[in-house]
């Protein structure tokens, strides 16, 4: 685990007060700032529509293809402004996004899917086949299914394929969007375990958007909590896990153990109206 001093020292990614507007009218992010340290797993938590995916897409510059626009603030990678780069330039710089909902190339085989991840690499066939071996050691299941069309593999295998595909680009930072989506708890554990192993052994930094607060805070080093386009809380994962508000709103644990869902909802609604 990284301590605070280390977190301060080496920022890979710095998002400064960005505002994102879709279609020129819909304001989704209202000033989000966060930093991703080198070699850490940073979690971005929050409910549906909080802006997690938008934040990731703002960083990877996939917003543009969805008519989203960063209207304020700046995004720095290694101290360099990256707001105007194309997604492919960013991949060359070592930042790659694994999109929500897996998005494998359905009609390509698993191995072809992985190879597309190496599209931007220029360091020769040998290095790419090494990367392929590396992906297969972390995801042995993909090796078994390498000749199957991705569209016919299971949800877990597709998620592994999507992560493996991103790894093929030899990334420094992976923006991982909702890896737990639609997967059985056991598989979620398995995938998070692999993410942790990649982080520790290969030194890949992760910015992780996740609704499953419980799992995310167990594996991450640091967490940010987003609510309707604003960061409402942040801190080391261990602290967030113990925070009474986080416990109540995101982990469903109140002072008196688990609370009824009805109480939680009415409390939050009243608070919204007043604030």
């Amino acid at each position, binding site marked *: 685990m990284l301590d605070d001093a280390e977190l301060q020292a080496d920022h890979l990614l710095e998002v400064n007060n960005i505002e994102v507007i879709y279609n020129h009218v819909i304001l989704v992010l209202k000033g989000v700032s966060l930093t991703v340290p080198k070699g850490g797993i940073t979690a971005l938590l929050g409910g549906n529509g909080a802006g997690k995916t938008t934040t990731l897409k703002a960083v*990877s510059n*996939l917003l543009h*293809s*969805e*008519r989203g626009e960063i209207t304020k603030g700046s995004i720095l990678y290694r101290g360099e402004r990256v707001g105007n780069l*194309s*997604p*492919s330039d*960013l*991949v*060359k710089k070592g930042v*790659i*996004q*694994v*999109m929500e909902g897996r*998005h*494998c*190339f*359905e*009609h*390509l085989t698993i191995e*072809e*899917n992985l*190879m*597309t*991840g190496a*599209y*931007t690499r220029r360091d020769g066939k040998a290095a790419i086949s090494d990367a392929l071996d590396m992906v297969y050691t972390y995801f042995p299941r993909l090796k078994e299914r390498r000749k199957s*069309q991705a*569209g*016919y593999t299971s*949800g877990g295998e597709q998620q592994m394929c*999507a992560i493996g*595909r*991103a790894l093929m*680009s030899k990334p420094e930072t992976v923006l991982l969007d909702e890896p737990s989506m639609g997967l059985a708890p056991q598989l979620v554990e398995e995938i998070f375990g692999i993410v942790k192993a990649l982080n520790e052994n290969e030194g890949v930094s992760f910015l992780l958007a996740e609704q499953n607060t419980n799992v995310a805070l167990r594996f991450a080093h640091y967490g940010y909590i987003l609510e309707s386009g604003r960061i409402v809380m942040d801190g080391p994962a261990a602290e967030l896990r113990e925070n009474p508000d986080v416990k109540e709103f995101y982990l469903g644990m109140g002072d008196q153990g688990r609370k009824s869902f009805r109480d939680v909802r009415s409390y939050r609604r009243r608070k919204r109206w007043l604030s």
Partner: protein
Amino acid sequence: MSPTFLYTVEVILNGLMAGVMYALVALGFVLIFKASGIFNYAQGVMALFAALTLVGIQQGQVPFSHLINAVFGTDIHHFGWTVPTLLAILLSLCVMILFAWLVNRLILRHLVNQEPIILFMATIGLAYFMEGLGDLMWGSDIKRLDVGLPSGGSFWLEDVTAGWAAEGSEYYGMYIDLLDVWATMIAVTLVIVLTLFSQYTKTGRALRAVADDHQAALSVGISLKAIWVIVWSIAGFVALVAGIMWGAKLGVQFSLSLIALKALPVLMLGGFTSIPGAIVGGLIIGVGEKLFEFSIGPMIGGATENWFAYVLALLFLVFRPQGLFGEKIIERV
């Protein structure tokens, strides 16, 4: 062998070769549709434009000569040289690549993420623009295209097959146009090369990836703009081949662009997303319409070739909307 049987064989062979010619046009549609989801209405006009350019370069015509003469009062039409066929083909290919780049730069780049119908409308506009541009550049007269391929009936085949018929019957042998035979061979080579390219090269794999999922392709660092220029260039190349073949057969003239209409039923039959589908669809339509015309045509007054393909396509739309080889919609349950 009875002459009727031999006639039938001749009809089937001619049908197969006509089918290959249809497939050549359909190929261009498939390539662009697969990679960008755009139904490129301008594909037929691209074939016409490519053929016009080829003839123009080959014969040393001055492009826009009418315009130049009208504005400056000069009277120039030719540079006074002729360009060897192969070089002219290469130059035409360069023109088509430049065209692909311009289309992407000036039109498609501004229409990213628009509805398919809007992109389709844009290609309709493009088709009419190119028709006019072709006329303006090279003139609207009917031109003869000679790329040095043999044409006319094969006497050898005629002599050989004439002997096959039963004694005493009036059978003069099969008529097969040599140009069709060449067109078939060229088309087959083209398809093999394209298939190898898309299956075994990095760019080919990226093309298929883009065809599957634009967003995901973007996310792994594939540049859509570059891929689209490549796809349109390949489609331009295919249009050039189709233009050469059809132009050599029919002469280079405006109606060449209407061959696109014949490609539509081929696409419905074979599926909009499959290269082998375009070929098989073309063959089925070619053979089907020739056989139908030969056997049923005389009973109902002929000219069935004009509508047979469309009726066949309609039947396919009812029973198998994705076509014979259309990409199966993968659905996990």
